[in-house]
């Protein structure tokens, strides 16, 4: 066989779109109107707010923008947010994997109840999520006297912010993994165990590669919420500038002081993070579909 025939590319595939019969599709005019309504709604509610953040951020010029995001308070806020995320997200990831393992690999009663409890933080207002930690660790709280006597600060300090963030982002990873591991079943793990691998090896070489994309997906959602959490953190932070202000709280303070350009400058940084999150999410969704 001639080599050229082997590497000859296929004729470009032309997509054949057969005209759908009228009974299976809405009238053309109706389709256009519906598409227009959907796009107009998204333009007003999603695109315009996003665009306005960047335009307002640069309204007073690039100098004001860079001054705002390199201000010591802004840098402290960025550092605090990153610290909180670096503690809360891995803890919830380990929990998510453990919970998914416990909920999908074994049969026992009360599974649905446990799943409901894991979902609870989604049904609770962020303000209440903050309030509960004040009730536990605040000056008048359950452990307040003991903490004061031992000079441990939880509320209005880093531990409180981390706890509140863990609470609101707790279900994200578990929620992604449970349905995924349920669908994949136990056969591969059982095969691995019967061939002599121990539990950890089985998880590492069999389960983890299977749930990789679901895990990343959950991590991204968890991360986005952890970075942006406002209500819960606002309750427990105490708003000490340069000390316990996360990025969203810093934005609030700037905004309330009518430093709109500065507020939107920091907001634009967070919007860039949000857009990156969406892009990674899209890639991950596409990857997991193609496998």
């Amino acid at each position, binding site marked *: 066989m001639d080599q050229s025939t082997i590497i000859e590319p296929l004729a470009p595939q032309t997509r054949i779109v057969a005209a759908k019969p009228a009974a299976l599709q809405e009238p053309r005019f109706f389709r256009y109107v519906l*598409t227009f309504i959907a796009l107009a709604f998204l333009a007003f509610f999603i695109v315009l707010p996003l665009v306005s953040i960047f335009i307002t951020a640069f309204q007073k010029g690039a100098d004001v923008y860079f001054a705002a995001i390199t201000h010591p308070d802004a840098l402290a806020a960025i550092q605090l947010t990153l610290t909180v995320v670096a503690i809360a997200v891995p803890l919830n990831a380990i929990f998510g994997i453990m919970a998914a393992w416990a909920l999908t690999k074994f049969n026992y009663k009360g599974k649905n109840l446990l799943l409901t409890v894991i979902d609870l933080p989604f049904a609770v207002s962020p303000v209440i999520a903050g309030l509960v930690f004040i009730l536990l660790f605040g000056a008048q709280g359950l452990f307040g006297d003991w903490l004061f006597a031992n000079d441990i600060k939880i509320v209005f300090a880093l531990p409180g912010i981390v706890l509140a963030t863990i609470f609101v982002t707790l279900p994200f990873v578990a929620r992604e993994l449970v349905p995924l591991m349920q669908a994949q079943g136990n056969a591969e793990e059982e095969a691995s165990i019967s061939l002599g691998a121990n539990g950890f090896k089985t998880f590492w070489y069999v389960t983890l590669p299977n749930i990789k994309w679901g895990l990343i997906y959950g991590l991204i959602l968890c991360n986005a919420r952890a970075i942006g959490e406002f209500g819960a953190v606002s309750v427990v932070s105490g708003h000490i500038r340069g000390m316990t202000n996360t990025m969203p709280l810093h934005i609030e303070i700037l905004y309330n002081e009518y430093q709109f350009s500065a507020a939107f400058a920091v907001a634009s940084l967070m919007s860039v993070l949000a857009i990156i999150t969406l892009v990674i999410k899209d890639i991950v969704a596409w990857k997991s579909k193609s496998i």
Partner: protein
Amino acid sequence: MTSLTFKKKPARVIPGFPLSLGYTMLYVSLLVLLPLAMIFIQTMSLSWAEFTAIVTDPRAIASYKLSFGTALAAGLVNVVFGTIIAWVLVRYHFPFKRIIDGLVDLPFALPTAVAGIALTSLYAPNGWIGQFFNFKIAFTPLGIIIALTFIGLPFVVRTVQPVLQNISVEVEEASASLGATRLQTVCKIIFPELAPAILTGFSLAFARALGEYGSVVFIAGNMPMKTEITPLIIMTKLEQYDYAGATSIAAVMLITSFVLLFTINLIQWLANRRFIH
């Protein structure tokens, strides 16, 4: 004899049951159950009369009405437009569809405070959109509805979309071949399939909207009796070190959202049962 006991209680093949379940229970107990129990423990320290006086205060009642009404309105707006958006994204072709599809998730990714200040500056009386209206949008309940619509949109779109994708063409073809018009097919074949998903999306958006704080505080104006949502009342009471007051209102909110979610799950369970049989 041994085989009999083996049959009765099959050995677990996969290891890690005590570790994974124990860790999970410990984690949720310490970080979810104990903290939430504090709301009820703290409320118990009040007498019934004190509790009712706090939670039926006119300012609190006004906030329940506002939170409930605006969450309901935003949920309904999202049901209509979210379903249209899901429909258009699944069924029609247009340029940049993939990017637009990705943008629907923006409210999940964008911090609520950022969304709050962006929407406020757009809908303020001198804002890009607000200036075209001769009535106020931001700093009124209308502004709250806009913020809650933004927050809730992806819930409806993302629950309806996969269901719509999975409706097989054969069902529609069968309907059409039996003489149904397109409108009949959509109303009597497709819509009943979508209804449970729409209800789920609505309930998720509604539950989220009831407790939403970050995006609303900026656009609401926060006037007592007029534009003060329930989470803000909790916040205000906390800032005044009125823990009993804050906790009582929080208990009302918690019970309300649990009852709501339970009811919606029940309706859904009943609806699913009817569809299967």
